[in-house]
């Protein structure tokens, strides 16, 4: 089976580096699957899990926005933060989720706090989803 190099890079260092068969991400325009030999592509990502398929294994990475760059035999995902399930602090994500929800209840729809809380909520849900708890 053909493979490609997949890198997930954050400012704090590399999170994931390996050969893989397929990458599926949540792009700005919707779900997107990338196989080896894909046409070069650049797209922003939404906050969501990235699935990396490696033979029978599926790796999940919680990616906080950023963007994806696809080359012929290489996929680079660049994000401000990204975590493997084992590195996720579940208790902290839960607390963040609750905090964000509380803020959403009080904040007005159009102010900055609301949008900030919304993003925080998305990140927390994403982390919890990926950690499987």
């Amino acid at each position, binding site marked *: 089976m053909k493979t490609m190099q997949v890198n997930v890079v954050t*400012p*704090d*260092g590399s999170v994931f580096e390996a050969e893989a068969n397929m990458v599926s991400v949540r792009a700005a325009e919707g779900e997107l699957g990338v196989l080896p030999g894909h*046409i*070069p*592509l*650049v*797209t922003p990502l939404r906050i969501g899990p990235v699935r990396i398929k490696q033979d029978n294994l599926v790796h999940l990475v919680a990616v906080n926005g950023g963007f994806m*760059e696809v080359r*012929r035999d290489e996929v680079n995902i660049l994000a401000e933060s990204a975590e493997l399930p084992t590195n996720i602090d579940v208790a902290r994500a839960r607390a963040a989720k609750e905090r964000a929800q509380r803020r959403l209840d009080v904040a007005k729809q159009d102010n900055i706090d609301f949008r900030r809380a919304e993003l925080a909520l998305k990140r927390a849900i994403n982390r919890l989803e990926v950690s499987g708890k």
Partner: protein
Amino acid sequence: MASLRDIKSKITSTKKTKQITKAMQMVSAAKLNKAQNKAQSFWPYTQKIRDVVMSIATGTEATHPMLETRKEIKKTAYLVITSDRGLCGAYNSGLLRHTMNTINERHNSQDEYGIIVIGKVGRDFFKKRNMPIYQEIVGVSDQPSYADIKNIAATTVDMFTDEVFDEVYLHYNHFVSAISQEITETKLLPLTDFDGSEKEAIGDTPTYEYEPNEEVILEQLLPHYAESLVYGALLDGKASEFGARMTAMSAATDNASDMIDQLNLRYNRARQAAITQEINEIVGGASALD
């Protein structure tokens, strides 16, 4: 002449000082190592964003306000990266002097510039001189994470976008080697180094498909890029700080050793003189009896 006891206590205290400076030197060396690793692991991230921005900026028609030099420069921002603590030689003083000189040269009044400062030493310096500080952050950890400075970087970029500032410069110590740091000024915003002059340098950049389109991607990418440059400068500055501290502390340790040697010499001379005097007194006393 100082008494034997005085010299002795001076030697003891100098020895203690030497131990401290020696320990600080070793701590700085270890931290420098870590800071260098950190700067290294961060490098691919900026490089990648840079590649993509470059290929959009040079390969397509798309453009963005952050890439364009403004016609009229009303206000310039200086983002100055200093340390929180002293004992690092000329690390802070040299940089702050350079910033002051630059500002005095370029501006006539306080309305023409603003200061964004990282680090306690710089903040106190500018505050004392009543200079316009727009943002400040102190107590950045020795191995700063991206999240630590995300706020100040993002706000700086926003201030540029909202036209509070028309130009942003970074002032920091660039790490050359453990014993040499270079005071550096770089232009952070607008991002002007994408004018195509470096196009040949990257060579094999593929022509990308942009999803959904170039403008949206630039919109997302450029703030990230600018923020990551600030973070990069901070990491560079941290590495320089530890380098400078290591050098300063190693000089201090050497000086302490010299001082201990001299004091030891004086101590031994004083001891010898005391013994000689005693013998003289005994001999003198004995001959008086004869």
